[in-house]
Each structure stands twice: as structure tokens, then as C-alpha cells.
């Protein structure tokens, strides 16, 4: 996330601030380079590159956006004559990094590798700012599962554990579930992160939580941390130009903070700084960055002997904000007996009341960083997110 020369952003900001289009709130400019390598047996068999550049201008209640960010396009979006703006040039698209730097076993274990570089700049009525994000790496496993991290993707996604024969799905009903950090990250993301997004809280006539709600076990403290540039959701400033800072969401299981943008912050009396855009064509909305579950003294090894099922990874998660029902589509899991894995489980669904799941949640092993859930979708708009969570044990979910 190293800073770079401001290119022509400063001159552009001066011109826009002088022209002051009616109702102008901000101008957002973005450049994104994506390269995808297709692999077979560790060898590259295809490579695609997509270079995107675009801009968006916000007025009260209106977003105008366009692919391309030439002076003509910017003038059109702002509704001002082109001659009032200076010539513009933004940081060039860098070349894709060499794939040879990745471990051979990683390349053999995946069907695709993706690299993303993203630069953005924001101009508002008074200031301008570059918005820096880490370069991202994504591995697509042979079953289509995608693992997101910052570049370079280091973890070999192959299932390292010894293979066990597959047994039946546990019978429908409640059970003790041990969630590995990658799976725990998805539960926290759905259950704490989305639940505390200001726009969803504002839209829900009867929100499940508010500041001060006792939501989870008193041992749980959760922070949203965009300053972690080693995780996929990091940024130097949010997409409304608010400098990044750690935001405490849960303290001792109690809701002490929310994720807000400039629009929802005043309503809840919390600072803004969580606005993110999926692309130039998206409104900035309150979004999760990197969720970190802080633990003082976690167990040194996972508490398998206290669980019926161990979930290693989750394909997807969802939360019905109105009813508080959370659903996790389990991808890899094992049946446990007396603390040992006895057989692998086919994919199944874990579901239940979020409040039950969080109140009956406790730390059950050491923390680990994770790119899960990776790409977070909300109303069709997708942003990268990360997490650091320990192993968690919950008795509040059922097999469905």
C-alpha cells in the first residue's frame, strides 16, 4: 500500500473546487488491473488481462458514473465545460507480477490464479486524497472454491490433512460445532459484521441490535480494522476519503460501535469511515473491511474433544437481517468422536438463530489470519474482506 505521486489529482481537485458544480459532493476515480492465469497441472494454459478505469460523481441523491476517466468524461459527469478542467493522467497500470514467484505446490493445487491492483482518488469540496489498497491474490481450487489473500498468495490451498473416508451428514438437529478460523471468520462476518452495517440497520424497522445490545459471549471483542494492509480488506482511507482507523464493534460481547458512512454516521452518532465501493458504478456504502476477534489467552490447540463436528471451511454464508437467521453452507468438515476425526462429511447446511449462535459461542483454539469470506457480496456489490479469528465452538447452530 505504498503511497505514490499524486499525478494530476491535485490539479484536478483545484479545478473542481473552483468550478463547484451545483450540489457536488465528490468525484471518485479508479483504475483497476486484473490478470487471471488459467492452470493445468501447475502449468499456465491461459492468461487474461482486464484494465479498467472509470469515474463517478455524487450529487444529492444521484450518482453518475462512466467507464473511462478522460477530461471529456470527467467534465461530462461533473456537468461543466471540458476547458475548465486540466489535462488528467493517473498512475499507469503496472505489469502483472511474475507467476514464477509462487510455490510449485500452490500452482499444482489450483485451476486459476488472479492478481488485482487497484488505485483510486477522491476529490470533494475541500480536499483530495489517494485511496491505497493492497494488491490482491486469489487462488481458485479445483472444486471452484476461491481463496483470497494479499499478493502473493502464499498458502497452498490443497487439503493438507490426511484423507478420511466420507460418512453421512449428521442427523438434523442441534450439535456442538467447532469452527476452524476460516469458517469462524464467515460466521463473524455474517453475524457481527453485516449486522452492524449502518445502512442495513437504518433500513430495518426492527433491527436486531443497537449500541449497547449484549450480543455475544462476554469473552468476545471484535474490531473492524482497515489498517491491516496484510489482509484483503485493508485501505488507507475509505471510499469517501475518511482516513482508515480501527473501529471497535463488540467489547465484552456488547455492541459498542457500528460501520457507518457519512450518510448513516449522524443518524447513529458514530464516526464515518467504513464507506466502500465495489466499483465506480456503485454507491459507497458501509461495509466490513477486516474483522479481528481479539482474544487474551486462547487455548493452544483446538478443543476437538468438546465438539461433535469440525468445520474447516464454508462455501458461503448469509444472514436474513429481519429474522436473524444465519446460514452457513459447509464445504469441508469432519465428524468428531472423543476429540478425533472419524470421517469426512459431505457438504451440508448449518443454520439457526444468529443471537443463539453468538451467545453460545466461545473461543476454542488459537487465532489465525484468513482471507475468508473473501469476496463479500451485498446487494450484488462485491468487495474484498479479511479476518483474524481464533477457533470457535458454538452450540447454537443446527444441521439442516
Amino acid at each position, binding site marked *: 500500500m505504498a503511497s505514490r505521486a499524486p499525478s494530476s489529482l491535485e490539479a484536478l481537485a483545484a479545478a473542481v473546487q473552483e468550478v463547484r458544480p451545483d450540489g457536488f459532493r465528490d468525484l471518485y476515480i479508479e483504475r483497476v488491473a486484473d490478470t487471471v492465469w488459467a492452470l493445468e497441472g501447475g502449468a499456465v494454459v491461459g492468461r487474461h488481462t482486464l484494465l*479498467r478505469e472509470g469515474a463517478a460523481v455524487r450529487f444529492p*441523491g444521484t450518482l*453518475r458514473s462512466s467507464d473511462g476517466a478522460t477530461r471529456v468524461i470527467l467534465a461530462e459527469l461533473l456537468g461543466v465545460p471540458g476547458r475548465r478542467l486540466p489535462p488528467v493522467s493517473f498512475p499507469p*497500470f503496472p505489469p502483472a507480477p511474475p507467476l514464477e514467484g509462487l510455490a510449485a505446490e500452490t500452482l499444482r493445487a489450483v485451476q486459476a490464479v488472479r492478481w488485482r491492483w487497484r488505485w483510486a482518488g477522491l476529490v470533494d469540496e475541500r480536499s483530495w486524497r489517494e485511496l491505497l489498497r493492497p494488491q490482491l491474490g486469489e487462488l481458485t481450487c479445483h472444486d471452484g472454491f476461491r481463496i483470497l489473500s494479499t499478493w502473493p498468495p502464499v498458502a497452498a490451498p490443497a487439503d493438507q490433512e490426511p484423507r478420511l473416508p466420507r460418512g453421512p451428514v449428521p442427523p438434523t438437529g442441534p450439535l456442538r460445532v467447532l469452527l476452524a478460523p476460516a469458517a469462524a471468520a464467515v460466521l463473524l462476518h455474517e453475524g457481527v459484521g453485516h449486522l452492524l452495517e449502518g445502512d442495513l440497520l437504518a433500513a430495518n424497522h426492527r433491527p436486531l441490535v443497537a449500541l449497547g445490545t449484549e450480543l455475544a459471549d462476554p469473552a468476545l471483542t471484535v474490531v473492524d480494522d482497515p489498517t491491516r494492509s496484510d489482509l484483503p480488506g485493508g485501505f488507507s482511507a475509505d471510499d469517501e476519503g475518511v482516513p482508515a482507523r480501527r473501529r471497535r464493534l463488540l467489547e465484552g460481547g456488547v455492541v459498542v460501535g457500528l460501520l457507518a458512512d457519512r450518510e448513516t454516521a449522524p443518524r447513529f452518532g458514530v464516526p464515518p469511515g467504513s464507506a466502500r465501493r465495489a466499483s465506480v458504478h456503485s454507491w459507497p456504502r458501509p461495509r466490513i473491511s477486516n474483522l479481528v476477534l481479539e482474544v487474551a489467552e486462547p487455548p493452544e490447540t483446538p478443543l476437538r474433544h468438546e465438539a461433535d463436528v469440525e468445520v474447516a471451511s464454508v462455501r458461503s454464508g448469509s444472514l436474513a437481517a429481519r429474522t436473524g437467521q444465519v446460514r452457513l453452507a459447509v464445504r469441508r468438515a469432519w465428524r468428531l468422536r472423543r476429540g478425533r476425526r472419524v470421517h469426512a462429511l459431505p457438504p451440508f447446511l448449518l443454520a439457526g438463530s444468529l443471537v443463539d449462535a453468538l451467545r453460545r459461542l466461545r473461543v476454542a483454539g488459537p487465532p489465525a489470519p484468513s482471507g475468508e469470506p473473501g469476496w463479500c457480496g451485498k446487494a450484488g456489490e462485491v468487495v474484498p474482506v479479511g479476518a483474524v479469528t481464533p477457533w470457535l465452538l458454538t452450540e447454537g447452530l443446527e444441521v439442516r
Partner: protein
Amino acid sequence: MRGGLALGPPALERAADELAHHTSRFEVYAKAGETFLFRFLPGGRLERRQQREVGVGCRAAVRGLVGFGAAAGSAPASGRDAARATLASLLPGPDPLPPFSLLGASAVPPAPSLGDPAGGEQLLGQLAAALTRTGEGLSLQELRLLLGRSVVTLVTGEGFAAAAASAACLLEAVVAAEEGPWRVFQFAARSPAELDVELLATTARETTLLLARGTAPREGLVDALLAPPVAATLVAALAEHLLAGKGTAAGRAGRVSEAWHLVDARAGPQGLVPMPFDGEGLPSRRLPLAAQGVAGGRLGTWADAQRFGCPWGAAVRPSYQHPPRAGPANLVVTPPEPLPQGELLHHLERGVFVPLCSGPVTVDESGRFSLPVAAASLRRGRVAAVHPAAELRGSFRRLLGGLLAGGEDAQSFSLSCAVTTPSLLVRGLTLG
């Protein structure tokens, strides 16, 4: 439709010029689209988004090497960037471009006019008023109207050039009963004039109130009347499955119901988005996927056809950002003997009515699907129990073999592709 390269944005011409220095086996695909999105939010707040999406994607084959690159924007520099990204991505591989002699365009209905986009606000206001008119226990969460039009232009280094315009609109309502989850309703049409606001409001209101409270279903095999939104979701997933060549087992076994008549009507005239050519310039044609008791086999792009020996002409390309891939485009279900809904319910006698999806469908490799839904159990055509949250499960083999009849109530939807389907009555799905 054949001519010079003077079509499309300057980026297209620049990309073609750059690539022409290296090969005549190249293709430049440009798309320029404009979308107006209106969101009506609680408290009467209106959010407007005006979005212009434009860019070029290039494929090239140069002396045994092939590559793809794309860049956003309409300026010449974007075309240059796309061409250079393409040349930088060259790797050994078979030439994926169709031969010049096969390229062309079919006749299609003209793209409809969307009218003045500002009329969208009025339409949303009408829908909001219609939804809340009676006011009893219904909460309006969000209304969305999307008006979209685009022009795609495709040129090749051997002199083929073609362009096509399309337009469509999409209306979505997110509502909830006093007790119960949010429900999402979607209605798609070729133009706003085709949207019946009163009918949409009645459907959304009655369905939401019906499905507000109830119990979990007892898991078991049921005969299910799938309303158009549910049928469309499964039809889109089924078409993907068949196009990938995974449905032939059922076809060989003679287990495809005669009641199926599912085609990818790429050139129209039925369906939401007819187009004169596919994603790589091959003339659009009607692709039967399940008809007369037979399920279709694999269909693909030109490159798929060379690799798998399957028919070509099934390339789709939702954006300039990606190379063409095989997929359904404009699905249409037309039952041979459509029945009014009363008769479908009479056939059902004892089973479930499934009016709404409540989440995305998941499909495994073998074609078993699972779809979160809201449903109502019926006895003698009357509602016996309501299931606000249930899971509809089955396999495409079962879906192909178990279709009993279709309705007269066809509706269009914009999903991963365009789908137009009536209600479908299917035997032997699992509700749990």
C-alpha cells in the same frame, strides 16, 4: 452487416489497428451500455444512478499463440491498452476464433424504446402507491427500477463487422409482512410500457401476506406447482447443466417429459433479449434444450466445438470484460398444452405451491439442486399449511422427467440469462 471497421467507439478502431500489425486473426468486441437505476427507499427517499459502461475486449491468434485482453473506456488509448494487453497475454493454444465464412447475423425484432428515463421515477411512485394502498400489515423496504440499453459491435481482422442494439427493464420490489422475512419480487420486460404495475403490486402483496407465518414442512417427496419466479430459477440452472453436456444421460434413458419445450430463442421473437449474433459473431439460432421427450447435449463456443466436437453458436458475453463462454442467453419455456392456473391446481390436488425463492439455487456436479423457497401445502386445491422458509430439493434428471404440465402465465426474468417461463407442475421433488 459486412463492411469496414467504421463502427463502434474510437477504442474499437484503435484496438483493431494495433492488432492488425500482428495478425489478421483477431476480433474486437466493443460494448457501450447505459443504465438508469432508480431506488425508492423507506421514507420516500429516491436514489438515482446513471451509469455508462463502455470498453473493448480483444482476442487474437498469432502464429500458434492466442490471447485475450480488455480495457474500459471509449477513447483510443483504451483500445491501445486492450490490444497491448492481448498481445502480452499470448500463450500457445488453438485458434479460438470462428472462421470468417461462418460469421453473420440473423434477423431479430428491433430493440424497444425505453422512453424518457425520467419516467422511471413516476413508475416507481405508482408501484409504491399500489403496494401500500390497502396498507394492511405490509412494509415496503425498497423498490428498484433498472432501465438498460446497449450497443455491441464486433469486428474481425478479416473484415467482418456487425452491430446490435438491445434494451430491457427490470422492476424489483422488496417487501415484508408485519411478521416475516423480506421478500424479493422481480419483473422484467422489454420496455416499461409492458409492465402492469397494478398486477405486480397485487402479486407481491398477496404472496407476501400469504407466506408471512407458518411452520417448517415435514420433509418428503411432493408434487410441486412452481410459480414463474421459482420455475425460472430452476430453468436457468437446468439450461446451464444441459449446455454443459450433463443432461444427455436422462435423454438417452427416455426420461424427458413430453411436456417440456425449452429452447434458447437467441434470435427471438419470443423472450426478453433477442440478439442477431452470439458472443463471437455467429448468427443467432434457436437452440432446443428439452423438447419432444429429448434433452439436448453439449453446446458451445467455436473453441468448445473444436475441442469437444459439439455444435457451436452458444457463446454469451455479458460484458466486454471477458472472453465469450458457452451459456444460455434467451430461454423460453412454451408448454405444448398450457393450462390455466385453476386446472394446474386441480391436477395438484395434494402437493405444494411454491410461489417464491428466498435465496440462490445451489447445484452439485451430478445435477442435484437445492433452492431456498417459501411454499404452501395444498389439500384439495386449498392452502392447508404455510412454510415461510423451506428448501426445495431434487435433481435435474427428476426435473426433466417429472414435468406434468405448464401454465399460461408466462413471465420474464433477468437472471444469469433471460428466462421467460410460465408456472410448471413437477412431480416428485423434495420439500424440507
